[in-house]
């Protein structure tokens, strides 16, 4: 079993550069057979959303994502793992979250990215508020029970 990789976790307001993050996990390496990226984006099909505001708990956000990432590198033989979560006001079409999982084998990279997203949704201390176009008061997004249920797939964490 290879040495466990050290996950990189960032919580920041700025956008991320997916190509640069892939490069960070693959440049000059011959042991990476598969790289999976998952990008979550701010979505608005109705045309009524001005912005999504992401509040987070500084300190705990990094710590909790770090714990979830550590769990992932224990469960899957990853050669690299990066998780970036943005906060602040994001407009429709903007990036929210990025997971990059690299591994020798494809199943590990895919499953780890899937696991990370399930846990980020329900365990990372972030809260979304929708600000409607037109300037009315924002509305907090409610947590989905399906997100909570999705965790059941992964057993005890």
């Amino acid at each position, binding site marked *: 079993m290879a040495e466990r990789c050290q996950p990189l976790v960032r919580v920041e307001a700025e956008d991320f550069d997916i190509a640069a993050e892939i490069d960070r996990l693959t440049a000059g390496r011959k042991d990476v057979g598969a790289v999976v990226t998952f990008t979550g984006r701010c979505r608005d099909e109705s045309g009524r959303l001005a912005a999504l505001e992401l509040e987070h708990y500084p300190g705990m956000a990094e710590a909790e994502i770090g714990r979830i990432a550590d769990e992932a590198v224990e469960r899957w033989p990853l050669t690299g793992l990066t998780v970036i979560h943005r906060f602040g006001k994001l407009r429709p079409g903007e990036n929210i979250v990025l997971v990059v999982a690299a591994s020798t084998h494809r199943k590990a990279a895919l499953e780890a990215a899937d696991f990370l997203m399930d846990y980020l*949704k329900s365990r*990372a*201390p972030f809260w979304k508020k929708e600000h409607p176009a037109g300037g009315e008061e924002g509305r907090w997004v409610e947590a989905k029970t399906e997100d909570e249920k999705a965790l059941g797939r992964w057993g005890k964490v």
Partner: protein
Amino acid sequence: MKLVYFAWVRERIGREIETVALPQEVETVTDLLTWLKGRGDGYAAALEYPEVIRVAVDHEHVEHEAKLPADGEVALFPPMTGG
């Protein structure tokens, strides 16, 4: 004890952070939620359904049955909606 609030818990309580001296009988997270609820309308509105409130002690999720630490940072917030 340092208390921090997020999202609609913060908005309803009307503050982000406060330091409180807890009465001795407040031993668990559940005790804390019950005690806070009696501190005014904002608290009552924020904690109307205490079972939905998530709690972290020093940046780690805890269950409502958990004992509170002697000191530290206790955070109250709604179910998370990140990702």
